């Protein structure tokens, strides 16, 4: 038989048609998944093994954005907190993290658009039923303030003789902008989970209960890690706590997510997604441990900070790949729905 039909939809630039020896009749047969999994092979029917729903056309830009968005959100929180608790070093690290995160996010989002020139059409409407529209407005709220705060930070780092005229106004706005940025940061970290979940992609949709927590935890871990790397050890205490808390939430909620996803959970353990997720667990766990124990040593802080960030990145990539894989194999769409129908529990509107 031909290799597992990791075929994406037709005409997909990189996609290959389904090349398996599609029998002329119905391709009732084993799910030709890659490696064996503990879930018993579900016997199901499909149309020559072709996908029923379509994988999102998003390249890896979106996975990167999930990560950079998380870092930006977490960092502006840390910056806000640091500003209030007079930790200039942590504040600076936070605000720079927020700025870098935001800039990378914007680049990733615009680059992934089919028609980048029409990016501003995102602001044409407010679609409450569209997490991406809601997210866009959240970003347009959070972005300027976080950006302003970061700008103030950068200006603050300039030699004092430059700090005259309007620039001084900017410095004064730094704090309030930072606080608004901090308050609007959590939605930035959480909305991306709703964006993925509010699709027909089996793995993402099935994870909608826990994914926000995983993403927020991941944001905290990543931004904490960033601060552990960039902020002075002395001031990085809260960052470490934030990171450890985030990592814990992420690991716990990721596990709960997998148990609640049903068949689609398979995609988190197999294939590329499986590799990413396993890496993320290892990195996040070690990073968190490092944050807990090595609070003192510079080297350990940098290492565990980096590990935490890497772990968060792997989580995002893993969730992205799992979604894609769950859309490409019709099994994940047909089997749960067919079982619902056979149990007589089709989704019907009651009364």
């Amino acid at each position, binding site marked *: 038989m031909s290799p597992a039909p990791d075929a994406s939809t037709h005409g997909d630039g990189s996609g290959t048609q389904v090349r398996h020896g599609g*029998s002329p*009749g119905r391709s009732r047969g084993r799910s030709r998944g890659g490696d064996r999994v503990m879930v018993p092979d579900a016997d199901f029917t499909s149309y020559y093994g072709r996908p029923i729903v379509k994988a999102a056309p998003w390249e890896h830009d979106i996975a990167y954005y999930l990560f950079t968005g998380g870092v930006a959100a977490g960092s502006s929180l840390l910056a806000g907190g640091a500003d209030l608790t007079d930790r200039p070093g942590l504040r600076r690290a936070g605000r720079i993290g927020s700025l870098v995160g935001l800039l990378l996010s914007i680049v990733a989002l615009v680059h992934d658009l089919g028609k980048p020139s029409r990016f501003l059409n995102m602001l044409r409407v407010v679609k409450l039923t569209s997490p991406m529209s809601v997210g866009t407005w959240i970003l347009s709220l959070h972005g300027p303030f976080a950006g302003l705060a970061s700008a103030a930070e950068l200006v603050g780092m300039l030699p004092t003789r430059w700090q005259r005229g309007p620039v001084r106004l900017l410095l004064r706005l730094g704090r309030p902008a930072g606080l608004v940025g901090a308050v609007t940061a959590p939605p930035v970290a959480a909305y991306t989970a709703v964006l993925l979940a509010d699709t027909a992609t089996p793995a993402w949709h099935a994870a*909608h209960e826990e994914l926000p927590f995983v993403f927020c935890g991941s944001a905290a871990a990543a931004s904490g890690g960033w601060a552990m790397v960039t902020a002075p050890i002395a001031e990085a205490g809260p960052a470490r706590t934030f990171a450890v808390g985030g990592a814990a939430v992420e690991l716990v909620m990721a596990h709960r997510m997998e148990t609640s996803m049903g068949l689609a959970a398979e995609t988190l353990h197999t294939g590329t997604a499986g590799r990413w997720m396993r890496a993320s667990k290892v990195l996040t766990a070690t990073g968190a441990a490092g944050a807990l124990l090595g609070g003192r040593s510079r080297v350990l802080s940098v290492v565990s900070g980096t590990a935490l960030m890497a772990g968060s990145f792997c989580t995002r990539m893993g969730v992205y790949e799992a979604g894609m894989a769950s859309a490409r194999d*019709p099994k994940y769409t047909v089997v749960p729905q067919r079982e619902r129908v056979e149990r007589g529990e089709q989704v019907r509107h009651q009364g």
Partner: protein
Amino acid sequence: MGPNSLFGPLDPASDAGYTDAPKRKGFFTDTSVCIGCKACEVACKEWNDVPENAFEMLGTSYDNSHSLNANQWRHVAFIEKPAAKPSAPSVDLGMPAVGAPVSDVPQDEKPDFQWLMSSDVCKHCTHAACLDVCPTGSLFRSEFGTVVVQDDICNGCGYCVAACPYGVIDRRRGPEGDPKVGIAQKCTLCYDRLTDGQRPACAAACPTESIQYGDVDELRERATARVELLHERGVMDARLYGNDPDDGVGGTGAMFLLLDEPEVYGLPPDPVVTTKDLPRMFTRAGMAGTALLIGAALSFVRRRP
């Protein structure tokens, strides 16, 4: 905005703000008279200047169009359904003929071979996930209750592609130089023709009127009558698909009469619009966000000053 705005039976046009909208238009596709001629595929491409998909044989019976996508707004599925073999072990021989080999003496048993054909199209759902998630307002509900992409607005974010429970809409990747590359494309139920009272190109062309165009409520009656007639004639496999306003997408504007399970045709057996769970998702995200905020605050409070 009404009670069923996110899920449940609804008149989509009035829900979308039209005051004196015409009756909702749609398709009823009776696959029992479809002869797989693909006139619908060609008529659609000619009217909407949809470019070619690819020139490659797929070996899946007479379907070389693969599936609905940005370059294929109508897709005729072909399923060669071998005779129902009595309890033949469905051993995967690795050879093309899945199931027991055809007995060498064909005369003795009566193989009731079936060649199922069906022209698939966008469902123009009552609750259209693609329309709901579209962040630019490019996908909109027309006054006829159909779901249409506004080519001049779409920026190709691709969200609709992942949201569609039927895998209909797609972002156009090629061919080179096509003006619509990069934006989402799908059946518009010939919105331009409808504004002038004309029939969609595929319905006009369909030789056996397997594709019927008309008012959705009237089509639902016709569909019910047709499936009852077929049952009387002993075609017990006939069933309707998408005509129930209470189903997971609030009933579809394009409904079908199928002769086998939906997944045999590549259709989801129990599709649900993702918007149904959106309130729950936003609630959970709100909790997670709050937790994050609190977590951040706690991170600062507990530390020694």
